[in-house]
């Protein structure tokens, strides 16, 4: 998805009840946008400045799995007791189904991770929480950044890849 200003969206992830962060790319930099819907804050990372991406494992997947399992079990117990009493579990059964879908969805999303962007002056956590998505993100953007940082063999040869951003 491209924006009006030529940015292409890579990732969008909510980080709170009303806050989301997204990563966009342009020809020579990544743009990290933090927004609450009314104010947007922008951080730019020139391809030439990005030194590495660090992927660390996280417990997020396990926490979600435990939470969904507990909620599913509690709802199932209520549904079971309603059936035992001869009632129809109008409330607890749909909730149990909903929590089960959440549990399955968490499983489908796969293992979780923390993705960090490292430049010479800062290490910043990116809004990517699943390993599969992080790998996809790195496959998408990694070669482009590496190409932008590759120095041409002939020093006299002009290359736009390694040049700093142009502000016209």
């Amino acid at each position, binding site marked *: 998805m491209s924006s009006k200003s030529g940015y292409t969206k890579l990732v969008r992830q909510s980080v709170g009840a009303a806050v989301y962060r997204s990563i966009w790319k342009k020809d020579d930099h990544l743009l990290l946008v933090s927004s609450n819907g009314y104010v*947007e*804050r922008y951080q730019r990372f020139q391809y030439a400045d990005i030194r590495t991406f660090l992927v*660390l494992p996280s417990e997020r997947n396990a926490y979600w799995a435990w939470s969904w399992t507990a909620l599913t079990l509690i709802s199932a117990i209520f549904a079971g007791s309603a059936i035992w009493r001869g009632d129809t579990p109008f409330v607890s059964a749909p909730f149990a189904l909903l929590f089960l879908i959440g549990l399955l969805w968490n499983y489908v999303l796969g293992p979780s991770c923390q993705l960090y962007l490292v430049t010479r002056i800062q*290490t910043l*956590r990116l809004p990517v929480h699943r390993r599969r998505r992080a790998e996809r993100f790195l496959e998408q953007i990694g070669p482009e950044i590496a190409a932008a*940082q590759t120095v041409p063999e002939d020093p006299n040869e002009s290359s736009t890849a390694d040049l700093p951003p*142009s502000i016209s």
Partner: protein
Amino acid sequence: MTTVVELSCPKCQHRFGDLDWHEDGAGSCRNCRTDFRAYRLPALTRGRDIARPKLVAVPEDSTCFFHVQNQAEKICDGCGRFVCAVCAIPNGHEFHCPSCLSHRINRTDAGVTERTIFPSIALTLALFPLLLYPLTILTAPISIGMVFMGWSRPGSLLRGPQRWKLVLAGIVSTIEIAAWLFLLAKVWLR
């Protein structure tokens, strides 16, 4: 094993040494035992380019516009001033002095760090208070104000000015104000 030494663990800030790396691109922090995988880029092993100015050797040397003690090494492609290695800032294929670069950043979106999204504020103020409609007597005029404030502002860097939201907010707020005026007039004339 790699020779990367200038990376730190994001969790405990321990600086990775050779022993932290198990293989090329992966390892485990010796301090907090966190496994990590690094997507290494050429900039990781590249040295830092530090611009060092040359002092004026003979009085006939051209000097930097900003630092009279430094030799001029480049000409600013924006204003044509002589500048030293410190002041010559690479900008694409060109070199610019700090003041030219500052002017260019201010003229374009390249230096924008924050934007207030007036269309969203105006629309929220116009629509959400309808749930508690007495509030609209306060929020509708504020929403109209936001519409006027936001009309000439650039809006979101990604989604543009979003004038349709301002138009919608303006229409809804105008209807709300008209409804209040009608209601007050009706009460007044009774």
